């Protein structure tokens, strides 16, 4: 197990540097001059441009810029955005909002997605099963931004149950609707994955043995079936927590939530290189840690991996 953990951690290092380098190259080597953009329509003073370039390290070759940036990151300095605000400050404002939203979404995935999948898997071919399959298929097909507008129109504008946009992201009740919209796609996947997994494990030998032993039904389902069926679902949920944070651009835009997605979207449009690279670096890190935890969890849940 120790060997396995060490190996996984070591594998993370080149991936972290590669992913940040890739995003760095995408942001800084592609056409579009952020310094020129800062001046808008006005003609820029060449001396001022040069001094700004120097200030943001843009007059150095790209690889030097990257090394400089990475060095700063290890001192927890994410640089300054072109508007003059430290990127770490921008992130400190945006991340808690998105984390709350992602957790609300995550809650829905577990407490709606899992039971739906369990029912559909246990009663395969029943009306409930067909209903779950059709509903999840519809949710998967409708893009999130359409679903967001439908939900907003119905629940906020027509019924007036909630406010159309989120005024205070600390108020969890306001995050329920955006969280549900953000969760919708993954929720459908969780339900389908659970259903498939339950269906496969129902036919396993240990299930037949458990039934033949005359164990009570709740023990068979809770202890034998669920524990084994949930392994792939846990894997999916783990990687999804990272994906939820990066995938919130659309949801945060519709409900006007000042989270990471919203900030990132504006930064990309305004060619705010330092902000984009900073946020994406943190998102990559979150994703890597999440997949590491999932792999370790997998080894804990499934001894076949641990002892192999």
């Amino acid at each position: 197990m120790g060997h396995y953990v060490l190996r996984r951690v070591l594998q993370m290092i080149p991936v972290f540097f590669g992913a940040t380098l890739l995003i760095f190259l995408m942001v800084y080597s592609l056409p579009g001059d952020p310094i020129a953009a800062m001046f808008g329509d006005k003609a820029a003073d060449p001396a001022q441009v040069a001094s700004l370039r120097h200030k943001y390290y843009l007059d150095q070759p790209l690889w030097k810029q990257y090394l400089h940036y990475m060095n700063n990151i290890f001192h927890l300095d994410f640089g300054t955005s072109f508007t003059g605000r430290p990127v770490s400050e921008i992130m400190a404002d945006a991340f808690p909002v998105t984390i709350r939203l992602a957790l609300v979404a995550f809650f829905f995935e577990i407490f709606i997605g899992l039971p739906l999948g369990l029912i559909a898997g246990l009663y395969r071919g029943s009306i409930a099963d067909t209903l779950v399959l059709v509903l999840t298929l519809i949710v998967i097909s409708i893009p999130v931004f359409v679903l967001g507008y439908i939900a907003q129109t119905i629940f906020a504008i027509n019924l007036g149950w909630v406010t159309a946009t989120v005024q205070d992201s600390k108020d969890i009740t306001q995050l329920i609707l955006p969280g549900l919209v953000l969760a919708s796609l993954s929720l459908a996947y969780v339900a389908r994955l659970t259903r498939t997994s339950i269906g496969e494990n129902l036919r396993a030998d240990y299930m037949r043995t458990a039934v033949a032993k005359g164990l009570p039904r709740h023990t068979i389902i809770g202890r034998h079936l669920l524990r084994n069926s949930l392994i792939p679902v846990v894997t999916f949920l783990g990687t999804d927590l990272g994906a939820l944070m990066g995938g919130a651009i659309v949801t945060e835009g519709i409900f006007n939530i000042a989270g990471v997605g919203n900030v990132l979207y504006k930064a990309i449009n305004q060619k705010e290189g330092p902000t984009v690279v900073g946020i994406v670096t943190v998102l990559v890190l979150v994703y890597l840690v999440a997949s590491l935890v999932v792999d370790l969890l997998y080894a804990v849940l499934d001894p076949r991996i641990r002892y192999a």
Partner: protein
Amino acid sequence: MPERNEDIPDHNDPLRNIQPTDSDHLDYVGQQGLAVEQETLIEPDPVKREQARSLWGDAWRDLRKRPTFIISALLILLLIVIAIWPGLFTNADPRAANLTQDYLRKPDYTDFFGAGWFGYDGQGRSIYARVLYGARASITVGICVTLAVTVLGGLAGMVSGYFGGWTDSVISRIIDIFFGIPLLLGALVLLNAFSVRTVWSVVIALAFLGWTQLARVMRGSVITVKQSDYVVAGRALGAGTGRLMFRHILPNAVAPVIVVATIALGGYITAEATLSFLGIGLQDPTISWGVDISSAQKVIRQAPFALFFPAAALSVTVLAFIMLGDAVRDALDPKLR
């Protein structure tokens, strides 16, 4: 995964170590192979006198009987026809704007296939015509991205899975690197660099970031198939790397790749619409459902129909491809039956 080596059953080892000079051993294997072949020849299925069916033949017979497959295939066929010849279904010009009349005219549901069937959008353009003409961008992006990622990811996964060792480590790490960057975020950054964005820039951006999923599927599939007896036999008989890869392994490893690619196609269409919706995907003069939904959002209270029809068209298209993928998966993977 370090465990892989131990997964290979021991009985493979003697076959792997066969030297061409070891004639006795080869003969034995050869006779055994022949004996098995004769057995199957002599003993055809006594109940049904059918030819031995391949996986694909089997899948096709299964697919033809599935209503979800028939419905989705017909829908996709219709969508492709609309994408190629949208003019067949309407005389209205999707770009003809008319602001002199009341521009947000309500749909006239009795005006079948007419310009006003689905109403007019914020610039007085026929929504029906725009829904038809918008199919081309979505279908083109979906199909082209899927083809590109299947070829790119398939090749990378094949090389990685077949050669193993260092090649595998390097390619796997590259895949991990791309996997760490969310598709939508990466595409936003990439597309922001294009000052003029066409269908092709969207295809390039999505393909550049999307190939990793299929590469992983292909790699896993190739690693499983590589250990099969017929591949070992092929190698023992002196088949070259290219022949082993493309004649023996590819046909047997490609099924999961096709399934994932079909389902992913719907996802790429959604991705294009989302990017266009965010204003970083397609631009005028390309007609895109995503752009239309984005502009309809401003008039959602007065004219919900302007959002509904392009959104419905988009959802039905994605649904058709996902249903097709589901049906193909069920047909190709007998375990799930």
